[in-house]
């Protein structure tokens, strides 16, 4: 449990109903200061709504959200000065030039005209869009638009950066670029960053603290290392130079195996230490090249599946 001074966002018993449908229901969440916080959940889990409630873009039906000591709804204008927010698939006016768009956003954030222009140029250079400043926003590619949205969120050097599915609409190259941009920013500035996503590897790569959401509730939250400490997957994948021979050996030893596209799948491994010593030993003795040996689901994926796909466990936790 984090101490009072370390928590920058605290949501207590938060519910949001749209008409009679609960989008977020009795949600409790604490975001420690300086963390790269991942909000993980399947589509429709309530991630975007939670972020909108935190930023004061939606009004709570009940409960309380405290952001940097301020009420998320009543003091939303003050909170907006301290938070940078990148909405899910942000849209910028296509007929404006990149620099004019950024200048307008800086002005609305409270910058004077000359400061707005200088700050806009700094941020565009930071996200690698400096050379496009006189180009119309409509002519930018999807990845460039996302970087522009990121630059917009960085206006005023916010204390908390909230990124709603920042890589959702990007191609693989764009995803890697934006992920690097986020981790680089977090490293350089030591800010609190909240990233929502349903893509596990991305959350794992970018964050050090996570909360798993499903059906508008937080199922579990904590540092990634702590959540994954006691979790392991009992199903393994093996790739070696002689898969047919290895699978026969493993079957003889009583392992439940299956071969698919030259990859050996071993199910329900009960004794992990024995398994981890057996496979390399067999390969070494028979001079088979062991290319990889890894769990089918990594630890975080296992944690996620345990919570999201297991309603009974979820009910127990709640």
């Amino acid at each position, binding site marked *: 449990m984090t101490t009072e001074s370390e928590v920058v966002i605290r949501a207590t018993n938060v519910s949001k109903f749209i008409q009679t449908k609960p989008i977020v229901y009795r949600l409790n969440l604490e975001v420690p200061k300086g963390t790269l916080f991942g909000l993980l959940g399947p589509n429709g889990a309530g991630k975007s709504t939670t972020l909108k409630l935190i930023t004061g*873009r939606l009004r709570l039906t009940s409960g309380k959200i405290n952001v940097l000591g301020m009420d998320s709804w009543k003091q939303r204008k003050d909170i*907006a000065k301290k938070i940078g927010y990148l909405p899910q698939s942000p849209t910028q*006016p296509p007929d404006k030039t990149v620099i004019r768009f950024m200048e307008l956003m800086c002005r609305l954030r409270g910058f004077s005209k000359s400061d707005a222009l200088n700050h806009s140029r700094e941020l565009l250079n930071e996200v690698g869009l400096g050379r496009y400043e006189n180009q119309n926003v409509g002519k930018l590619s999807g990845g460039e638009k996302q970087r522009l949205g990121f630059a917009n969120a960085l206006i005023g050097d916010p204390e908390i950066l909230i990124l709603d599915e920042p890589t959702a609409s990007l191609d693989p190259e764009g995803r890697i670029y934006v992920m690097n941009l986020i981790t680089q920013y977090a490293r350089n500035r030591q800010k609190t960053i909240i990233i929502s996503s349903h893509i596990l590897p991305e959350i794992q790569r970018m964050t050090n603290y996570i909360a798993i959401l499903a059906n508008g509730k937080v199922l579990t939250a904590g540092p990634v290392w702590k959540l994954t400490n006691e979790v392991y997957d009992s199903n393994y994948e093996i790739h070696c130079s002689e898969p047919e021979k290895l699978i026969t050996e493993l079957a003889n030893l009583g392992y439940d195996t299956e071969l698919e596209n030259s990859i050996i799948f071993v199910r329900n491994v009960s004794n992990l230490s024995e398994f981890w010593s057996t496979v390399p030993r067999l390969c070494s003795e028979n001079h088979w090249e062991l290319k990889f040996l890894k769990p089918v689901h990594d630890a975080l994926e296992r944690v996620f599946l345990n919570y999201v796909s297991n309603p009974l466990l979820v009910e127990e936790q709640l």
Partner: protein
Amino acid sequence: MTFTRATSYFQNISVRPIITSLRNIHIISLDVFFSNIREKKFWLAILYYVVVPLGSMLGGFFIPVIQNGTGIALYQAQFSTTSMITGTFLSFFLGQILIALLTADQIAGDIERGTFTLFRSKPIYEFEVVFGKYFGMLYTLSILSVPVLIINYYTQMFRFGAFWPDAFIHSLDEIIAVAVILVVLLGAVIGLALLTSSVFSKSLHSIITTLLLLFLVDFFGNLLPSNSKYLSLSWYVDVIYPKIFYNLEPVKNSPDPLMLFFLLIGVNLLFLVVASIILRLRENP
């Protein structure tokens, strides 16, 4: 005791949020204005609001002047300016379509394109966006209408042989009054268009609804008794302008122009406040 309490109450009121709001409204209005003048729709509006009135005014030069001199010149200038405003500004099929095309897209278009979220990610309130858009549109439509109105007025005076500079300076207060009323009238139509724009998420729906509302308001307003046609847009022009032009006969039962001016300001504010409330409610269901 009460006085002390009242003093402390007023001391607690900070002017800083008001100044910040005014600043935000100003920034948004300038952005809307400069965005408008870069749009094709604006040049279409120029054709209507500038070229058509100037064309018809120049056409009037071919009509022989039977009587000239300062008095008749003032009368003719005022008369032709009133007709121009009535004809250009209040003609349903072109003037209103253009206002609706330019304005009704403002909020609904932003919501449709998804750009409205940009405003919401910054420390500004919904009413600042609505008022900013209102003033931006008002600047746009005013620079289309007011200069043409002034040119028309003084050209007619020149045509009918008014004496320079006496008659021209003398008529300055009238042209200012006409310009102010015209701007407030434009504001009422812009306010209505913004109101419908805040209800719909599609520009087309907003434009069509604005046109229908303008038509219905004007149509039913004209059916009211002559001394209470407050809903009729054309009635404002017919009633107020002859009163402002002191040497025209006031229409019978016409109300006080100052009262009507404030009534129109009230209508403007009402539209904008309702639009802000609707926007806030729809964004926070």
